[in-house]
């Protein structure tokens, strides 16, 4: 008995230690870096010529930077869902997914704060937020909660990492001097004693309780950036809940994709099993139904009344210029994933991956639809402006920066998986012990 578990621990450790990039990994990283560089160049152009390089103008004063920001904030919510909610609910099967979810959260929230700086007309005046900050502005609330959430997410990534750092330092495989230094710096003090474990466990529990309301705050406050204005399509009391349900959905979809990729890339079939896809698939169905419910509320209720201010906006979404994107976002982002994942066969890894991709892509376009069409329908007519002010299609610089930021977030996740075990080793071993003990 004793013998068998120790072998298992060794195998587990061996399986889960970070690995060097393969050929595919190199190409993947290279492509991401290329995207980031193009984005950085586009931002250099924007710094030189200010926001005139974008297609945003006085009427559409927020474009894909803001929709990308909302997308990042949304996807970052998954960290609190998978880690905190499941941990508090004592859901054991989610253990291999916690770190994936947490690193998605950290990288997304990091790039959310970067992209919002990119959107500023005067980024060099960022410090004005601290010099003259008005507590009455929802932007200030957003700055505070995003900062708080980033800090909490980092802690939630760090505490469970401590036992793994000891394992990392002890092993030779895959670790180089450079990484060892980092491991030492982060966790040389971890001995794994009873008291240390107890303190760690307590800290994680406190964190899980704290991060859930903060996660709700970040996305609710982000929705208030829109809902606190009078504009049709934004002026809604439903917005907080609508955003949060959408955020959980896109986050869960993102986890489905990440699960599939890490499973393939690191041969983790033993750890991320079909059972996990089955369970995550069910969760995605539940969340998609929830989001669909809020969507029906969000569009059907105003459409039933068709107030004058809402009319042009809704008509354009349902049957006008934005109808293709709108119906794509509804179908691909919610209905098709539900139809795939509702069947047992649909919850196999490959169809689940497809459903995950549909959810995430649909969600990105959904954020675009939330931001832009509304701005094209002001209360007073668009008068005395050049013709190009009355339309919006992002310029190549905007696309490059938006895509570059998405690539940057993926790059952080990729590098993290290179340096740290993407599935918690110690926790997996512990759980293995428990199951064998039974």
């Amino acid at each position, binding site marked *: 008995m004793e013998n068998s578990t120790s072998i298992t621990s060794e195998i587990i450790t061996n399986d889960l230690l970070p690995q060097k990039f393969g050929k595919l990994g190199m190409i993947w990283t290279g492509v991401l870096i290329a995207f980031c560089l193009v984005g950085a160049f586009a931002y250099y152009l924007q710094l030189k010529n200010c926001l005139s390089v974008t297609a945003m103008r006085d009427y559409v004063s927020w474009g894909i930077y803001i929709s990308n920001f909302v997308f990042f904030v949304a996807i970052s919510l998954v960290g609190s869902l998978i880690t905190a909610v499941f941990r508090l609910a004592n859901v054991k099967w989610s253990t291999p997914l916690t770190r994936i979810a947490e690193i998605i959260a950290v990288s997304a929230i990091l790039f959310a704060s970067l992209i919002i700086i990119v959107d500023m007309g005067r980024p060099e005046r960022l410090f004005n937020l601290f010099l003259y900050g008005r507590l009455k502005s929802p932007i200030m609330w957003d700055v505070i909660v995003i900062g708080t959430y980033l800090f909490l997410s980092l802690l939630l990534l760090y505490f469970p990492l401590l036992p793994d750092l000891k394992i990392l330092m002890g092993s030779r495989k895959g670790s180089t001097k450079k990484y060892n230094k980092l491991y030492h710096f982060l966790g040389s003090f*971890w001995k794994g004693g009873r008291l240390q474990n107890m303190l760690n466990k307590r800290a994680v529990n*406190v964190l899980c309780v704290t991060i859930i309301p903060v996660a709700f705050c970040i996305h609710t406050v982000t929705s208030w950036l829109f809902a606190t204005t009078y504009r049709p399509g934004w002026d809604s009391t439903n917005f907080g809940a609508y955003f949060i349900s959408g955020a959980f959905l896109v986050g869960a979809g993102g986890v489905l994709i990440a699960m599939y990729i890490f499973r393939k890339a690191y041969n983790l079939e033993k750890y991320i099993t079909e059972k996990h896809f089955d369970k995550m698939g069910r969760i995605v169905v539940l969340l998609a139904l929830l989001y669909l419910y809020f969507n029906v509320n969000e569009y059907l209720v105003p459409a039933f009344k068709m107030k004058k201010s809402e009319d042009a906006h809704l008509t354009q979404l349902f049957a006008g210029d934005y109808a293709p994107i709108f119906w794509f976002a509804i179908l691909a982002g919610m209905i098709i994933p539900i139809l795939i994942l509702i069947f047992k066969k649909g919850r196999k890894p490959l169809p689940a991956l497809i459903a995950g991709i549909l959810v995430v892509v649909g969600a990105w376009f959904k954020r675009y639809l939330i931001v832009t069409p509304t701005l094209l329908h002001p209360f007073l007519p668009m008068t005395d402006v050049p013709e190009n002010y009355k339309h919006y299609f992002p310029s190549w610089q905007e696309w490059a920066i938006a895509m570059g930021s998405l690539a940057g977030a993926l790059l952080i996740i990729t590098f993290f998986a290179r340096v740290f075990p993407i599935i918690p080793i110690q926790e997996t071993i512990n759980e293995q012990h428990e199951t064998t003990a039974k």
Partner: protein
Amino acid sequence: MKQLQNKLRIVISTIILITGIKAISFAQDSIVAPVLLDIKYFVSDRQAPYLIVKTKIKKERKFLPVKDITVVVFLNEKSNTSTLGKIITNEKGEGKIIIPVSFKSTWDSSSEFTFKATSEPVGKTEALTAEVVIKKAKLVLDTLNEDGVRSIRITSLEKNGSEWKPVKGVEVKIMVKRLLGDLPIGDEESYTTDSSGQIIAQFKRDSLPGDINGNLVLLAKTEDNDLYGNLLIEKNCKWGKPLQDNNDAFNSRTLWGAHFKTPFWLLGIAYSIIIGVWGIIIFLVVQIFKIKKLGA
């Protein structure tokens, strides 16, 4: 066919007409409009007479000021001894000359004067002249309050020899002074003096806000009167409603207030959340150090 010809004719004649009009208007534009010089006589509410000269140019049906033009103003005749003053027009194309005390004897000698203005040639602008003939006159303003009816009595007086005599038929505007444009005291735009040189106008601006003590400034004036120029008289009276300037909205804590004027409820909620959450974060960081200490 004939119809077509007719249409063609109309089209051609229209084109000719339009180009013709365009050519004319173009020609008008290309002519440099001449600078105009203007002189006006004023008597202030302190009874001091002065002159305003103005240089301007007409462009696109609008008068634009011309600045930096030197203008000399003479009394009665163009000679060194009768020079009232010399000014250079300002950005508004205006210059002001007060009649100097040294002209007292000339001033007392007559009751009718000619003021002559001459500008010095500058660049393309030729020397210009303008003159105005005026008779000495003044307005007197009295406030009346009979049986609760407030009214204003204006008397227009003209100097005749050594005496001030009332004159009839002088058009006078009577207003309450306001910051940007004076408010007429009643419905009429202006009043004309009767045979006794008087106007009695009813004050119809009840409870008009004045200053904090309820003071209003009444004023009466003639505007470019052919004989007397611009006469002005002002008088303070207590017919206004005391001003109650309400800055409550500015001073109170509102959502649209400045940095330091955040509503208490918002401060309370925001700070209790921030302190609560960051308190926990500090606790967690302390845990890291505790773990670290245990391992050291």
